[in-house]
């Protein structure tokens, strides 16, 4: 039997080359056909005069690498936002011109971000760019945009983005505002907040915790424990044991996801009656609740956008749910708002020229519609490109939903005391 198969195989061998050439030629035909279609869609048609009817916006997001999970959601939001603008008639002052988002994968890497931003600007006629969600990447993209004189709008919170930049616009709360909001939130739980701050002993942990420490006296918040810990521990029990001994009634954990999950679970196990605020970070993502389950209930944090801050935000979130399967997380929602800010600027500039779009952005003052659907409900940029009405929103996981609880103006539910 086996010999038979061997011989038949050997007989077939000369044919093999011929057999192979068939799929090859098929592939070639496909390639040619694809090329023709692609040329029709992207190359030839604009030459026939479509160019005036579409406005290119660049979207810089990591869709591969360590930050891909959030990046992919951002891309879905960016495409949905352009659709929304186009469905509403596009840019009317430009004859109903449609927005076209050109996405570039910056691979969660700073070097790639620099080259991809360059490539995106040089290879396309862009009116503006939005991205990159992660501050470390946005800082680089912003530098490139400043040099190329193309406006970039971003939800990233680093205060550095507002230093000496002319083409960078940050319509949402800054990192320095997050610490203040967090301290104020501790007063929701207790009149006399006694806060334990535990932070991982890294640059991120140290700088964030120092921000909290500096602002605490001004906010009338007492810090009863201030303790660095080694990131990536195997067991949070000894640390939580210490928190318990400190007599704190609020816990600020400045930690990455894995440590935070351990901390939250251990607090539950100890049966410690303490409010946990995880600051800003990955735990505002829908995935977090899916992973951690009910242990996430009652966990507080701060975000630059939340899906329930007003009716427009809720509408956006509903639509995003149909596209992506989850509520609009903070970056997704902020990208939709940013797209509408760009559309507003283009409408007023009646131009797709990046310089004119930039100038129109700098005089933007929106207090209604999707552009203003963030906390603060108004966008007006100061000289540093910072939204003067921007503020963070305090959020809490309640019954599997991320609910806005702070400040009063944005609160959609009372704080859940755990």
């Amino acid at each position: 039997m086996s010999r038979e198969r061997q011989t038949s195989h050997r007989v077939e061998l000369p044919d093999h080359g011929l057999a192979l050439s068939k799929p090859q030629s098929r592939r070639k035909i496909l390639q040619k056909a694809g090329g023709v279609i692609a040329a029709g869609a992207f190359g030839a048609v604009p030459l026939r005069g479509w160019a005036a009817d579409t406005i290119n916006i660049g979207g810089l997001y990591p869709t591969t690498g360590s930050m891909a999970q959030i990046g992919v959601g951002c891309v879905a939001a960016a495409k949905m936002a352009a659709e929304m603008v186009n469905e509403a008639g596009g840019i009317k002052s430009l004859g109903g011109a449609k927005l076209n988002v050109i996405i570039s994968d910056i691979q969660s890497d700073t070097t790639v971000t620099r080259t991809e931003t360059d490539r995106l600007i040089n290879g396309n006629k862009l009116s503006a760019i939005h991205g990159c969600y992660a501050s470390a990447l946005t800082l680089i993209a912003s530098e490139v945009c400043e040099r190329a004189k193309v406006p970039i709008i971003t939800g990233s919170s680093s205060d550095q983005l507002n230093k000496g930049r002319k083409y960078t616009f940050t319509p949402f709360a800054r990192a320095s505002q997050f610490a203040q909001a967090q301290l104020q939130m501790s007063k929701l739980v207790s009149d006399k907040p006694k806060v334990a701050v535990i932070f991982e002993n890294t640059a991120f942990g140290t700088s964030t915790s120092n921000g909290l420490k500096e602002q605490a006296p001004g906010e009338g918040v007492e810090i009863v424990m201030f303790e660095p810990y080694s990131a990536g521990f195997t067991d949070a029990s000894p640390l939580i044991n210490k928190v318990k001994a400190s007599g704190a009634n609020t816990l600020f954990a400045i930690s990455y996801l894995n440590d935070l999950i351990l901390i939250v679970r251990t607090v539950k196990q100890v049966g410690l009656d303490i409010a946990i605020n995880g600051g800003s970070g990955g735990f505002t993502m829908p995935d977090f609740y899916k992973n951690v389950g009910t242990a996430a209930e009652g966990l507080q944090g701060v975000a630059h956008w939340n899906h329930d801050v007003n009716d427009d935000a809720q509408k956006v979130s509903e639509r995003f749910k149909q596209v992506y399967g989850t509520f609009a997380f903070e970056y997704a929602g902020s990208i939709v708002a940013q797209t509408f800010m760009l559309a507003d600027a283009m409408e007023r500039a009646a131009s797709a020229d990046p310089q004119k779009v930039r100038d129109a952005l700098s005089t933007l003052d929106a207090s209604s519609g999707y552009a203003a659907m963030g906390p603060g409900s108004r966008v007006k940029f100061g000289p540093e490109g910072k939204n003067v009405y921007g503020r963070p929103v305090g959020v809490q996981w309640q019954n599997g939903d991320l609910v806005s609880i702070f400040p009063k103006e944005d609160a959609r539910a009372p704080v859940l005391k755990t």
Partner: protein
Amino acid sequence: MLETVAQAVINGLLIGGIYALVSIGVTLIFGVVKIVNFAQGEFVMIGMYLSFYLATQFGLDPLLSLFVTMPALFAAGVLIQHFLIRRVLGPNDMPQIFLTFALSLLLLNLALMLFTANYRTVHTSYSDAALHFAGLYVPVAKLIAFVVAMALSGALWVFLHTTDLGKAMRAAAQNRDVATLMGINPNRVFAVAFGAALALAGAAGSLLMPFYSAYPFVGQVFVLMAFVAVVLGTLGNVIGALVASLMMGVAESLGIQFVGADSGLIVVFAMLLLTLALKPTGLGGGRVR
């Protein structure tokens, strides 16, 4: 105060049980096969992902998945010993070191590719539960893990001391050449030892899953402690590794409690240095048991 100390000791013992499962595997392989398995942590990681997928795809409780992860990793261990380790056993140590190190890197990067760097957790009914008594608490998931870890360590000890294969293993550990002259087939003994060590790593993975997150680098966290425990308890000494693991868990916990939350490991390593300075052969007295 006394309550705080007692709680710190409980916390330390419970996590020490997990360290023990990993370190016993390392010490068993070193004692019998005479190689250092740098990839031991990655097998814990594989055990965790196996448990995770069995739990999320088939609804199998992570603790019950022990009955899958242990045989699966035992088989993997036998195959690795037979097809890889056996070929580099010789007078030169370097190929062995490179082999297990390469295995570690390969598994780590494969995991990154297949599972991505995301954290995966399994939520069980007992994940957040704890027993409370006299102002102290014992998390249920960790208590189960500790009890099972001790039972498995005990079972291994009984196996090594009462069965022919176990005795053959100890004989091969004491003197490979003489053991071979006595009619012991070293390849068979090595394969079983490697398999048993990996089965323990798999068990550690399943036991961790109810209260710890799985991610590709998770093995690195535990293997560091395992290596310290192995040296502390004398290389190749199973009882030594067990005792050292529990001691380290307690030392780490007390260190975090009374020195500083970023100093837990400092206490552990200080303990290691002190032991090596005063008793260079380790707490096991240099005896391979």
